[in-house]
């Protein structure tokens, strides 16, 4: 069990100055060394689009892109990614013009409460890029369907579901999310 400290003077936790390029804009932040990227985005930069669903890597709501790969911001130590490029949901749209994925989510009703949606979008966008460069998933090894060396040419529904399995939607809009992603994938 942790025991309480009895020091009268406790040195303040160290902070660090780090630089992150968030949605193309370079920001300098004085951050608590313990801070996660998630808390930094939400509390220091007022970018509240990215959501906290569990803070322990169990739900995917906090998914963002760091150096163009999708990651969990709740398990990303901010000081560790000093200098990195960060992409959040706020960076998707071009002014009033929605990204095709965003529009597809709206049209296919890919959400209900909308809380997991930023994470779903960041995940989906990265996922489509991963597929385009030939990445695999566990579903690529399904006994009936094994494109292991080259990767599956087209994303089946099964593939999309496995690749998106790290984003939990308690409202259960999964089928519509996949429909939205499929539509964008098919159109590309």
């Amino acid at each position, binding site marked *: *069990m*942790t*025991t*309480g400290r009895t*020091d*009268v003077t*406790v040195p*303040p*936790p160290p902070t660090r100055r780090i630089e992150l390029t968030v949605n193309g804009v370079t920001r300098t932040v004085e951050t*608590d060394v313990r*801070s996660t990227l998630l*808390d930094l985005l*939400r*509390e220091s930069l*007022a*970018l*509240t*689009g*990215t*959501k*906290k*669903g*569990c*803070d322990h890597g*169990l739900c995917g709501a906090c998914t963002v892109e760091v150096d163009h790969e999708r990651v969990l911001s709740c398990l990303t130590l901010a000081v560790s990614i000093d200098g990195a490029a960060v992409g*959040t*949901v*706020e960076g*998707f749209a071009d002014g009033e013009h*929605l990204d095709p994925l*965003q*529009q597809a*989510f*709206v049209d296919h*009703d890919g*959400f*209900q*409460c*909308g*809380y*997991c*949606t*930023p994470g779903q979008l960041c995940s989906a966008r990265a996922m489509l890029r991963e597929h385009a460069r030939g990445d695999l998933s566990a579903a690529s090894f399904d006994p009936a369907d094994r494109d292991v060396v080259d990767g599956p040419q087209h994303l089946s529904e099964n593939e*999309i*579901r*496995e690749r*998106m*399995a*790290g*984003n*939990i*939607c*308690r*409202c*259960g*809009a*999964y*089928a519509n*999310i*996949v429909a939205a992603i499929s539509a964008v994938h098919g159109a590309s």
Partner: protein
Amino acid sequence: MVASVGLPVNRVEGVDKVTGKARYSADTQVAGVAYAALVQAQIPHGRVTAESVDAAAATASAAPGVSYVLTPTNCPPLQVLPKELTWDLPLERRPPLSDLTVQHMGQHMALVVADSPENAVHAASLMDFDYIAAPAHLDATEVVSGGGAADDVDELIRHGAYRPDHFVKLTDEKLQDFRGPRGEPPGIKVDQTYRTAVNAHYPIELSATVAQWDDGHLTVHDCTRWITGERRVLAAYLNIPEERIRVVSPLVGGAFGSKSFLWMHVVLCAVAAREVGRPVKLVLTRDQMFTSTGHRPRTEQQVALVADAAGTIVSTEHHTLTETSTVAHFCEPAGVSSRILYQSPRLAVTHTVARIHAPTPCFMRGPGEAPGLFALEMAMDELAYALGRDPLALRMDNLADVDQTDGRPWSSAHLARCYTTGARRFGWDRRPLQSRSLQRNGIRVGWGMATATYPGRRMPAACRVETDADGHVRFSAATHEIGTGVRTVMTQLAADTTGLPLSQVSFESGDSSFPDAPYSGASQTSASVGSAVFAAAQEWRGRADALPATADGPGRAAALSFTTASGPGPDVDTVSRSFGAHFCEVEVDEQIGRATVTRWVAVMDCGRVLNPKLATNQVMGGILFGLGMALMEQVPHDPHTGRLLGEYYVPTHADRPAFDISFVDSSDYGLDPIGVRGIGEIGVCGVAGAIANAIHHATGKWLRQLPITLEALLEPRDDDRED
């Protein structure tokens, strides 16, 4: 002009949700906010010493960045809630931090306020209390069989078991109900016990509160789905007039039955904000969500069905044992559907609630129906097999034309059509009766079905109309957008009824400064708020038509701005109830204990469908909720300490079936003038039963305990197999 009701209009807040502009409570931007973290009890029953509380508070206060520590020894006294204010809902009358006893694991023991989330969490982790544990009642059966004498400690802490008369304030929803002959008649009988586990709502949004005082006025941003109630209860706890409190909840990231009542942490956040003189933000951790915002309690249900040789049910018994905390009342009304769903001249329904040292449970999507229909629908299948009959045919032969509890007919009911349509879409007529007769690639396949039902409910609501000089009309009510799409369908309804285009109408929710609305739950919002919106829109149309053509902008706007109210619904000779049918296929790989739900057909009779895109999404979500309940959801805990352990699994993208969801879409004007009956919960009703029935069809096993685990599905030894 084309009517929009009945069309798949996109959600009005959809663009906000996909751009990150949508604001939930934790996103509230308030200058100078301080951060709070909760400290919760680590034993199920006992007390803490005042000395250790003060020592822990001193330790935490000395930690970096801490401005205040709220504990039972320094918390300003909060009022005990008056009895009538609990509305028979699971509200704890005993204020938080009001004594040194511990009534359940996770009870709030302190609140730390600091200048950053990291400092608040760290300081909270330093607080060690000396717990003096007392024997804890953790098991309902043990309480009922005499483990705990019934008593009242100031009526705020209670022990023992009791039998509530009815469900919340709904006197018609009797929890102890008998009809017909005393003795059970002879016939073909099924008598089994079904068990469901503790389930958590698990909304992805963590409960978050931002409390701010300004000259004696309190503004609370909270992800509540009951703004009106929360305001009233906060006022009671804090002993200040309601008018001095504003509650704001524009978007809620999923509720499913939680987030509606005033959970203790909200008032603690308000108290802390008052003490530190700064706005305070509190976000619960995921672990805290299991003990701080309610859950579905365990049930143990004994169901006995008797039918004559022709398959006509002659007797139904449904006896439920469930649990609540020692500090609030809640009864999971598992037997309510059995009172009405299938015709049965003899009925005995009872509910016994045992008070245990666990957190207070509350409504969870389909309260009563979800676990109760699991038991009833499994029992119906067991009866069908005992009779050698098709499970669907047995149900169709026992439909009730009237509400058997009072003899009134349904205002509109199309259950038979749900059955036949669903069966056709699924291909049920190709189902062999014999279990273990279907397989695919060496894996067992089963087809199961179940009935869904949920009452049509309606409560009073009000609606304000504000017309701008430019002609835009804003409707508003203190209801809540929790993902059901209320803002969208109300906009559609208002547009159609006023005759205005959608672009000229909007519907706002989520603020106590809007007219009162009931809690967003019980599938009642469309009927309740919808009736108010409908009345307001009709009023608007009437006033607009009566205005002289010469009325100027501001004059016209003033004339077309007002507030209306609507009541609890007409006093009619009929009963409004929704019905539906679920059909599913489940593959069971017995070698590795894996059940896969492959496809699902659901046909729902929910009255008029205001927006088929949103309605389908709701039903789909409900089915997934039931799938989780059936196959994976339980709160794992250490048997010795009751402490939560490990992870709570909910379905992922990879776990869901292919869906075929359709609606009968027949308006029912018995409940409200719009023709709706609500769709938020009916999707989950019957799902677990359908899955269990499909698993029986696949394996020959009746698995009567939820969740159905891998162990239960693993290929049994021959001598262990039951059939």
